[in-house]
């Protein structure tokens, strides 16, 4: 067990290192010159050279890479190319917004998806089942950002229940939640379709198991069997999948934050891309990838908590 955990952590660290390396070199492949981006088109050769010297851009690639890695190992992401602000501070100030959005949408997805999937599996090939399959297929096809646009049109523009711009600076907890509902719903409803489908298929598979037949044969009520026995068993794949959807949710968050004009890591990254702030783009990409790797690691390691039968080789 301990060796498995250690191995898993080491491989996650190796992947993070590889991601950082790839991102570092990819950013150096960009055709445009960072010094030119910062100083503008009318900068003289001298000022460009001075800027390169100051930021270390004139040094050999390898020594830049070593510096970058040693900084990263100390948890320092460097400074923004354009604003010269520490990137760590920017990311930490925006992280809670994206985190809240991701958690809220996962919750919405699970609250809708799991019961609907269970229900559809129990009432297989009935109207409920077909309906759930249509919902799932529609959910797959609905781009999350378009769902966001529709929610914005109905609930903000038409009904006026929510603000159109979701800028949050200060405000009470209720205000934060109020502004979280629409963005989280637009991502969460899409998640729900994935979770419904997965719950349905895992449930269907589990219903054919011997222990279900035994439980029914000894006279337990079907609802007891479904909810106390089967549901407990299928929670592992379902929870794993919810964890693994983190990547999709983070990708969706970039779009959702744009639709609702909500602050967050996605908007930070997009802003960096439009300003060609390479150090910020580099850090933003790494942070996204690190979160995904970390969540995958946590999901893998918590298997044993959900299911004592899981054995580590």
């Amino acid at each position, binding site marked *: 067990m301990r060796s498995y955990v250690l191995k898993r952590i080491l491989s996650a660290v190796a*992947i993070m290192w*590889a*991601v950082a390396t*790839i*991102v570092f070199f*990819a950013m150096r*492949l*960009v055709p445009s010159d960072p010094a030119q981006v910062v100083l503008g088109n009318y900068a003289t050769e001298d000022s460009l050279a001075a800027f390169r010297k100051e930021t270390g851009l004139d040094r050999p690639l390898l020594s830049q890479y070593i510096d970058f890695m040693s900084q990263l190992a100390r948890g320092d992401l460097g400074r923004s190319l354009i604003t010269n602000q520490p990137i760590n501070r920017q990311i930490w100030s925006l992280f809670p917004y994206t985190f809240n959005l991701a958690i809220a949408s996962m919750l919405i997805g699970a609250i809708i998806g799991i019961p609907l999937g269970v229900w559809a599996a129990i009432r*297989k*090939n009935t109207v409920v089942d077909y309906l759930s399959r249509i919902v799932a*297929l*529609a959910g*797959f*096809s*609905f*781009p999350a*950002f*378009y769902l966001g*646009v*529709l929610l*914005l*049109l109905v609930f903000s*523009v*038409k009904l006026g229940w929510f603000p*159109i711009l979701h800028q949050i600076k200060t405000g009470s907890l209720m205000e934060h939640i109020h502004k979280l509902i629409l963005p989280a719903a637009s991502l969460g409803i899409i998640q729900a379709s994935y979770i419904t489908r997965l719950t349905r*298929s895992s449930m*269907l*598979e589990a219903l054919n198991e011997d222990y279900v037949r035994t439980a029914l044969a000894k006279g337990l009520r079907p609802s007891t069997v479904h909810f106390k026995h089967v549901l407990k068993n299928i929670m592992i794949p379902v929870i794993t999948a919810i964890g693994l959807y983190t*990547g*999709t949710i*983070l*990708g*969706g968050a*970039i*779009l959702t934050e*744009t*639709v609702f004009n909500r602050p967050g890591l996605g908007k930070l*990254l*997009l802003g960096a*891309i*439009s300003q060609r702030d390479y150090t910020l*783009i580099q850090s933003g*990409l790494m942070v*996204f*990838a690190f979160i*995904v*790797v970390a969540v*995958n690691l946590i999901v893998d390691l918590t298997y044993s908590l959900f299911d004592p039968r899981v054995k580590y080789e």
Partner: protein
Amino acid sequence: MNNTLEKIFPVELLPKTPQPGAPSKFLFLINFWWILKQDKTALTGFFVIIGLLGVALLAPWLAPYGFSEQHIVHSFKGPDPRFWLGTDEFGRDLLSRMIWGTRPALLVGVFSVLVSIGIGVPIGLIAGFKLGWVDRIVSWFVDIMLSFPSLLLGLTLVTLMGPGVYKVVLAIGIAHVPQYIRLARGPTMSIRNLDFISASRALGAGDLRLAFSHILPNVIGPIIIMATLSIAGAIRMEASLSFLGLGVQPPIPSWGNMIREGVENILQSPWMALFPGLILTLTVLAFNMVGDSLRDMFDPRTIVSRKPKTKQ
């Protein structure tokens, strides 16, 4: 030469030579049609796709106005007899722009998937066939690529290459390569140990020949199913990138950049975001419907669960 071989090897071990006139190459297409006919959902999706292809091809004749033709006095119109779906901020006809928008959507959808298949499948085949250090490096690389959300990967690549339709094709194509590597690698690893491969090898077939003319035909089924589904994903990703302003650039209309303009003007006209999103969703849904049914047909687990239904 064949005769002497048959004396040495039992006939059933020899790779089958196609009978003259046998529809071996078209068998898959016939199967495809047969599968579609069984399933109403898939058939509906298929006809929608055919319809969209028609619209894309006939765009210049179908669109009532040019995609950048401005009627500035008629800006932000709702649907009316002259502009069926209304107009945008410059008074451009939304219907015409949506019709022209089928072109980048389908182009990016189809060609980016071809890029993914073209790069991913050979790599997957070779990794699964060679195993050893080649496979280890490839798998590690796939793991790294998959730790990026695919939209983020597409976003990164577009940032590196710059916007434009063909660069978007390349970016989305490369972003989906890891999935095809995985898809081709798995079955290859199990097929490479089967008897018919050993037999071909004994007949002197080289690695490349074994991988591409004996293993590839056996793994192509799942790849085609995946392709249908990933066309849907690619169209959605193109729209997402264009929505973020990084994909197809105005004035060329793409459903994604139309939705972006719609959101920017959401108070003036709800139609601008509504209609392009509808056609986008419909298109993605159509490809998903076909891909989903194909997958269900080939998935042994769902075949089992389908049986009672056919008996009724």
